[in-house]
């Protein structure tokens, strides 16, 4: 009987937490400010005292690791973050773009898979170019004979989905066990077309040179990438206004405003608009400082979710807060250097700025990547403070 009551309590808690996010996403004022920290798998493994590389290679250990995070940190969403960089499929493919360091972190060396003189191939048929030119350049096991390539691809495909579904199973189980909201996280990953062309096709150095050397090609490549990014951000089931395509924004702060206007913004806007037209909201990680582009962000479809790293929270609230949904800004660096009271005061300050009128949920300025990058007592204190005090 006690067990049945406990299950009912957890179910009620889950419904209450889910309602908080529904209200935020519907533009209603929730009962209180929802809390959604971003604790990475690396943080979770280190916090649980496990070996970083070993757990990433053996997901049998994942439940214990995630469970400890769920037990110790207050959150309205499951704090156990999905690992996008499982090392197994990268290793099977001989990846040059994501390589595990001796310490167990997945490192991302600067690489490029598309040569400048190959832009026309990409523009003519981006997916064919990816399969035939780009992937074999980035993944050494795909630069082999057709037979070897097929075997490598088959193994990596299976490993990717085996590990993905295993992790999702653990996360889903803990979400129900601890009564977390299934809403408020991310569903799919896609990219702004310019970022897609920049990140692994041309690389940071390549794309910045291309903006001067062959601007027309860059512009056409972004247009060519757009349908792929739209497809990647669209779920295979009917979209929900509570779902989200996660779009981490990379390059905009590093290029000139006139280049942003011409090369970055047009296809990015088309992507977010196109997803919204299908009923799929976007969740942007507004990486670095976008304050000079804040008026552009306003133009995106209503209720676009924006997770801010740096910038002016007051300006964001004033310019975007009535139209879009805001999270982020809390500097995780303070969790390392500040006193408990300073950390709580910072949370109060941000809530005072960002919470009025709703359309806000509490989050940090970036994912917490290592256990020693924060004082975990401060982290716990801040999450508890917000969950217990940020009532409307």
């Amino acid at each position, binding site marked *: 009987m006690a067990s049945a009551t406990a299950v009912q309590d957890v179910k009620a808690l889950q419904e209450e937490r889910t309602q908080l996010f529904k209200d935020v996403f519907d533009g209603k004022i929730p009962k209180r400010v929802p809390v959604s920290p971003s604790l990475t798998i690396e943080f979770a493994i280190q916090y649980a005292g496990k070996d970083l590389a070993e757990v990433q290679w053996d997901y049998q250990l994942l439940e214990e690791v995630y469970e400890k995070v769920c037990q110790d940190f207050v959150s309205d969403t499951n704090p156990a973050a999905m690992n996008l960089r499982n090392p197994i499929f990268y290793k099977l493919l001989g990846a040059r773009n994501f390589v595990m360091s001796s310490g167990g972190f997945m490192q991302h060396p600067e690489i490029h898979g598309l040569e400048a003189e190959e832009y026309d191939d990409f523009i003519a048929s981006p*997916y064919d170019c990816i399969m035939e030119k780009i992937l074999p350049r*980035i993944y050494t096991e795909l630069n082999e004979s057709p037979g070897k390539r097929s075997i490598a691809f088959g193994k*990596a495909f299976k490993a990717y989905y085996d590990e993905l579904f295993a992790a999702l199973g653990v996360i889903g189980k803990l979400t129900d066990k601890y009564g977390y909201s299934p809403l408020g996280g991310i569903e799919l*990953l*896609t*990219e702004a077309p310019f970022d897609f062309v920049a990140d692994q096709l041309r690389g940071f150095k390549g794309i910045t040179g291309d903006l001067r050397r062959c601007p027309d090609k860059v512009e056409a490549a972004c247009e060519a990438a757009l349908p792929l990014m739209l497809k*990647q951000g669209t779920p295979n089931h009917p979209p929900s206004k509570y779902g989200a395509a996660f779009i981490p924004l990379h390059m905009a702060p590093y290029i000139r405003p006139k280049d942003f206007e011409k090369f970055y913004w047009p296809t990015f806007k088309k992507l977010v608009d196109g997803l919204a037209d299908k009923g799929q909201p976007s969740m942007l990680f507004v990486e670095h400082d976008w304050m000079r582009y804040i008026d552009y962000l306003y133009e995106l479809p209503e209720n676009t979710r924006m997770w801010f790293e740096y910038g002016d929270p007051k300006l964001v609230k004033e310019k975007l807060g009535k139209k879009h949904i805001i999270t982020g800004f809390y500097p995780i660096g303070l969790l390392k250097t500040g006193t408990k009271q300073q950390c709580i005061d910072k949370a109060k300050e941000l809530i005072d700025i960002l919470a009025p009128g709703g359309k806000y949920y509490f989050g940090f300025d970036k994912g917490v990547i290592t256990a020693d990058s924060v004082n975990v007592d401060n982290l716990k204190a801040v999450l508890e403070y917000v969950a217990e005090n940020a009532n409307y």
Partner: protein
Amino acid sequence: MDTKYYKTWEAYIAEHPEIDEKLIPVMAPKIQSYEEMMFGFVMMLLM
């Protein structure tokens, strides 16, 4: 999407007229789901 590496169900069935019509309702979602999984995997390799 104009590519030889991704097929919609419509394109697939056009190339396979031998498929029994009564199997189409059960085959279509399965074949298409693997197509979508492969697309998602390929894109993930570049994200």
